[in-house]
């Protein structure tokens, strides 16, 4: 699998969520994703960026443009050094939240992408990696 291009964005404020949406959209257009695929990936990115801001006080998003056997994809890695998630299974459930949201962020984001991987250690941080293929 080849990584064609990478970029890292900081998420420290609500304005950065908008910025993440815009950059992910631009990359998805450049990779010639369909409008529905663009919308799904941008929406997933928006959910995960906001989660990071709300629950970890911020973090970073790394974008990677991928190519594998003629297929094009985008991979996004959300990394924070927040409190971590004690029970990932519970956190993935729709409707579960420790904050003031709807509890749709993690489970919802997973449904919008082709690949979803979450690693978390309480007290250390969380890393969520998603990918969508064209």
């Amino acid at each position: 699998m080849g990584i064609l291009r990478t970029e890292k964005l900081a998420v420290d404020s609500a304005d950065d969520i908008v910025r993440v949406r815009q950059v992910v959209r631009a990359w998805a257009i450049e990779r010639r994703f369909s409008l529905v695929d663009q919308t799904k990936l941008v929406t997933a990115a928006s959910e995960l960026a906001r989660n990071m801001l709300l629950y970890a006080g911020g973090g970073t998003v790394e974008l990677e443009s991928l190519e594998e056997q003629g297929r094009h994809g985008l991979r996004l890695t959300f990394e924070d050094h927040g409190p971590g998630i004690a029970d990932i299974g519970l956190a993935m459930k729709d409707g579960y939240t420790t904050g003031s949201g709807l509890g749709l962020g993690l489970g919802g984001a997973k449904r919008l992408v082709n690949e979803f991987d979450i690693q978390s250690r309480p007290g250390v941080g969380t890393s969520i990696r998603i990918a969508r293929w064209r």
Partner: protein
Amino acid sequence: MERIPILKMGEFVLVSIQVDMHDQLAMTLQDDLTAQIVRSRAKGVLIDISALEIVDSFIGRMLGNIASMARVLDAETVVVGMRPAVAITLVELGMALPGVKTALNVERGMELLRATLGTPVETGRAPAESPNGHPQN
């Protein structure tokens, strides 16, 4: 501070969201709209989201909140113009916007509001009389 303009038209208030909203702007719109409903004694709220490229759970929740608050204030809300890709994504995300009335476009949204409120549809002019005495279409 950045704000989304709210227009008053008869007994309705209209909002067209034309920018990629950051979270605070969405919260401000929610507050401004509820204040405007009370101030103008509006019976209907129409929100045009045809320019929105995404609706995530935060914006979806805001739309639901506005509809609920408006209902408590005795006003009906219709969200119009959702793009097809946004609708597909929103449902997969797990948000079907329960309790929010929707219509395809502004025109249909206005019809829906008028029908809900029992307001006669304005044609903009008095019906003309035809030679045989029946109104023309």
